[in-house]
């Protein structure tokens, strides 16, 4: 158990370091912010001035060390565009994103698991399929279409919900719905499948062979082992959501979150913000994955040994 934890920790540290370096290299080698300022009248001389201003004329190695040093002294530099500390900018935006993420995951869990069980248990009946069909719609419609559609329906036509920002609880409804839609569909399917797996297992068959009605058996034994796998999937999805951000939702609903910040700074090559932001998100994802792996490892003894071939 300890060795598993240690190995996972090591892997996490290594991955983190690789990501940090990769982000640095890829951003710097694929274009400079001076290229992405929409050339509104910059002479070649001006470009040079700006390159010096952003300290981009220092050797790459130098810049890399300065970047790494940021991790030790907490000074990650100033955004090229906003000229204020990167950590401040990212911190401002992480909280709204986190709130939305928590809301979306809570809604997803509350809706998908029960519905998934329903879909599995009542799979022979029409509402089992109906439930799956509804979930499917949430998944198959591109998220920005769903977002714009909800805005047009609930804000534009019905005037029930606000569309700008994150000020009140009402503001959370539509963005959460959009973020949850795909998650619910995925988790529902997974729950349903996991449930069916459980139903097929020996102890369940025994119970059923004894003559107990299927529904009672399920309610009594619950999801059994499936719980762990479901939670690990939730972990994965959570990580995925955190990683790919919610740029669509943030754009449509003017949500001051980190997804839009990352995409914008990627497009504008605002290196300090991009580097710090990606690394922060990566850290969160790695931690979540590590916890997920540990949980999975706890459940399956064979995985604990690892490497023994």
């Amino acid at each position, binding site marked *: 158990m300890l060795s598993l934890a240690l190995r996972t920790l090591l892997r996490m540290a290594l991955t983190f370091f690789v990501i940090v370096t990769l982000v640095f290299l890829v951003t710097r080698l694929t274009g400079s912010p001076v290229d992405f300022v929409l050339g509104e009248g910059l002479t070649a001389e001006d470009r040079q001035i700006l390159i010096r201003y952003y300290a981009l004329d220092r050797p790459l190695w130098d810049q890399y060390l300065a970047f790494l040093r940021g991790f030790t002294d907490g000074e990650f530099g100033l955004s090229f565009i906003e000229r204020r500390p990167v950590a401040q900018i990212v911190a401002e935006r992480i909280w709204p994103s986190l709130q939305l993420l928590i809301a979306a995951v809570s809604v997803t869990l509350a809706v998908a698991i029960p519905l998934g069980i329903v879909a599995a248990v009542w799979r022979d009946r029409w509402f089992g399929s109906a439930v799956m069909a509804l979930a499917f719609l949430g998944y198959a419609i591109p998220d920005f279409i769903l977002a714009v559609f909800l805005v047009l329906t609930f804000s534009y036509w019905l005037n029930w919900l606000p569309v700008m920002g994150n000020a009140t609880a009402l503001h959370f409804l539509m963005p959460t719905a959009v973020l949850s839609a795909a998650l619910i569909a995925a988790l529902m399917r997974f729950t349903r499948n996991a449930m069916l*797996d459980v139903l097929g297992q020996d102890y369940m068959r025994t119970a059923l062979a004894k003559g107990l009605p299927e529904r009672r058996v399920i309610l009594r034994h619950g999801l059994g082992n499936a719980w762990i796998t479901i939670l690990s999937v939730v972990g994965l999805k959570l990580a995925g959501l955190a*990683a790919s951000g919610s740029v669509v939702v943030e754009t449509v609903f003017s949500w001051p979150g980190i997804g839009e910040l990352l995409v914008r700074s990627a497009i504008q090559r605002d290196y300090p913000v991009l580097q710090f932001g990606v690394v922060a998100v990566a850290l969160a994802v790695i931690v979540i994955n590590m916890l997920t792996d540990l949980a999975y490892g706890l459940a399956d003894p064979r995985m604990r040994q690892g490497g023994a071939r």
Partner: protein
Amino acid sequence: MTVLHAPAAPGPIRRLWDEADTVQRAALLIGLALLVLAVLAPWLAPFDPDRQSLIARFRPPLGFAGARPGHWLGTDELGRDILSRGLYGLRLTLMLAALGATLGLMIGGTLGLLAGVVGGRTEALIMGAVDTQIAVPFTLIALFVLTVFGSTLTVLVLVLGLYGWEQYARIVRAEAARLMTLPFIEAARCAGASPVRIALSHVLPNLVSPLVVQFTLSLSNIILLESTLSFLGLGVQPPTATLGAMVGVGRDFMPTAPWIVLVPAALILAVTFSIQILGDWLRDRADVRLRRR
């Protein structure tokens, strides 16, 4: 003397059909129809999909006021025929998705197999790459790749292929690792079989089922990713139409000209629906434990 003949066993296709329920039959038919439409698009499309008509922009489908004759599903923001663009878009989207998913399968599958069978440092390296990929927002990866190499179709397929290779790798490696602990593999090794042979003859056959399921999942994911890229302004160059591009551009006109979005969105829905149902069906059939029906 009477010769009794057993009734001819139904052919495999007929068997498939009989076993399917209504939803699955619908999915099968829809899927086939979409495939036919995509393949025959160049012959079915009434207009050149890129042909503009600046004086006939935003015309609604036939039957609504202001419709332009010949344009069954209306025209878009540059007066191009929506039906034609939808057909070509379907074609291109399916091609991109298939190529991308195949690429992902090949990359991820090979790496996962390698990791699972060989183990040790190779496995650590490969799984490390998987972890790295998962931790970085894919939209950013796509952004960088497309910015550096340009938004050509080739690069796009590459990007779409990269999207999700780690899923394959994880699945394959997990399954391979599991199989490697089984006695019969041990036996094969003792018999002197090389890792390659073990991988190909013993591990691979057992992977077909989960891989196929993941493949179908990939297909729909890729189609949706492609539309997100278009939303961000990456993705195919205008005037080329994929379903994702049509939806991305059309969203600005949803209140006034919803047909521009509805047609490609409906097609995406139909494609995803049939892929998912058929994928589930395959999974159900392959899963032994579920045979207790």
